[in-house]
């Protein structure tokens, strides 16, 4: 239970750059500064001050062992994502288990966008539904993120219960996912990647999986907005409820085809502006009619089907937001208190929220989720 490991970020593994004094003179001398700025600059005569504490602080963190690869012992591979490999490890500092996410740095375009986002945002977030980032090791070839270790991710979880999850657990997991997304996170930040799905490269050379991408993105929209994630959330709800991925396409065309066959080929009515989309027109898809989702997800109740439907809307303006979906009727049965727990507390801090034994589970639930008790500091993550 208790998590007392330090949330810490340090960067000490870069070598110092060689001094190149010749570059000092790279300024053209014809730049003219406004007189008031010049005057100001002259008034700010340099005063003697104590040396910066930052260097010494950084040095002491380094002395402790943060930011160093030697501090962590690799224990075994946990999985391979679309842009990173994750290992189970142990921190020599705390003896705690950690997850080491190794991001290969391709020398083509420097640090990947997703890695920058992941570090820059996760670093400042303390939330019960978000994995804590403990340390960063930045070297020439590789960026290693050290995360708190979680017992199981959604994929393992689904495998362990033979793809038959208790519907009440589906609801709790969905709520946790949406809680994370209602903050600053994007679905991509959860490292969503299935080994089976075929990764593809975007124009910015990033590797992404197709299965959770909405049609607007598949049809060339490069605008990142939150409705993109909500489509992916719909796909995950379906996957948890049925045990199968919703749209397991291996090419963009196949992905779109799978979507349209189930949700209906978009029309000007369901997806304003679609008839003007050149890419859409060039595919010449047949005119499919939307099928009733209830026939495909029979285990999901009426409210659940309604939520799924509003998550999978073509029109991004009508697609439900993370904040609004937390208030959806589907979650009414979780009670009112769940909306007032602090960000840093797990939903399991509420007495009424408990996971049920999954019908498909091989043995008792506890051996896969030994720490899923109601410890207040326990951070839960679905991925």
């Amino acid at each position, binding site marked *: 239970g208790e998590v007392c490991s330090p949330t810490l970020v340090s*960067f000490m593994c870069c070598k110092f*750059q060689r001094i190149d004094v010749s570059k000092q003179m790279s300024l053209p001398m014809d730049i003219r500064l406004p007189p008031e700025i010049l005057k100001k600059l002259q008034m700010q005569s340099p005063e003697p001050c104590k040396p910066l504490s930052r260097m010494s602080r950084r040095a002491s963190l380094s*002395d402790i062992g943060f930011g160093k690869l030697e501090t962590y012992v690799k224990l075994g591979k946990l999985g391979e994502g679309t842009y990173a490999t994750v290992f189970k490890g142990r921190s020599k500092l705390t003896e705690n288990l950690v997850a080491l996410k190794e991001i290969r740095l391709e020398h083509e375009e420097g640090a990947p966008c997703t890695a920058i986002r992941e570090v820059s945002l996760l*670093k400042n977030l303390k939330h019960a539904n978000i994995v804590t980032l403990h340390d960063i090791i930045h070297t020439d070839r590789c960026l290693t993120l050290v995360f708190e270790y979680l017992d199981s991710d959604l994929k393992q979880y689904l495998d362990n219960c033979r793809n038959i999850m208790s519907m009440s657990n589906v609801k709790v997991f969905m709520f946790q996912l949406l809680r994370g997304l209602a903050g600053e996170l994007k679905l991509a930040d959860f490292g969503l990647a299935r080994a089976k799905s075929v990764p593809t490269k975007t124009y910015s050379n990033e590797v992404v999986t197709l299965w959770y991408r909405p049609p607007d993105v598949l049809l060339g929209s490069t605008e990142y907005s939150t409705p993109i994630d909500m489509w992916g959330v719909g796909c995950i709800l379906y996957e948890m409820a049925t045990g199968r991925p919703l749209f397991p396409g291996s090419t963009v065309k196949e992905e779109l085809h799978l979507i349209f066959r189930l949700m209906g080929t978009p029309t000007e009515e369901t997806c304003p502006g679609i008839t003007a989309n050149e890419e859409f027109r060039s595919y010449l898809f047949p005119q499919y009619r939307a099928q009733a989702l209830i026939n495909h997800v029979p285990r999901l109740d009426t409210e659940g089907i309604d939520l799924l439907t509003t998550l999978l809307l073509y029109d991004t303006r009508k697609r439900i937001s993370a904040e609004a979906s937390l208030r959806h009727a589907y979650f009414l049965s979780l009670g009112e208190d769940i909306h007032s727990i602090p960000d840093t507390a797990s939903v399991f801090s509420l007495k009424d929220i408990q996971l049920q034994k999954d019908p498909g589970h091989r043995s008792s639930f506890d051996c896969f989720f030994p720490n899923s008790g109601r410890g207040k500091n326990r951070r839960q993550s679905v991925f």
Partner: protein
Amino acid sequence: EGILIGGKRYSEVTITLETCLLPPERLARSPSAVLGLSADTEEQLRIRGCEEIQAAGILLRLPQVAMATGQVLFQRFFYCKSFIRHCAEMVAMACLHLASKIEEEPRRVRDILNVFHHLKHSTEHRTAKPMPLDSTYISMKSEVIRAERQLLKELGFCVHIKHPHKVIVMYLQVLECERNTKLVQKA
């Protein structure tokens, strides 16, 4: 709780950027000033770097927010490191490259190198050719990537910046000055 190292107990060290205001003593004595660079040369280098980022950003058709981010990164970096030991132009390129990724409008290092090359060598009468793909190009490219890594390290990955521009526009709206286009434009 925590860990005991050298007689001191460490339980939590968090490096965040709650406030992006520098203390006056650090503003007055930047790393460049410590190494003896004159204040007005430093000011000129800062202005020049920001202008380069702006001009290159326009040519790369980046949204204005990317240039603003790049400029903030540039200014912040040179409160961690000096102009004497770090090439201002290289850092400017790395800032723009990183900013384009942060603002989700990524541009390739090649395009950034070409645009900076163009800005440097084009005159009124002729436009410079793209950089030849020779060894100079390859070493410059890897230097930009190295500078980017150093930027991330120095800034502690605190690179998502909240810009004041929107807030200024909001204040102007509250003050009912939004029709004062000169002021809004300045924001």
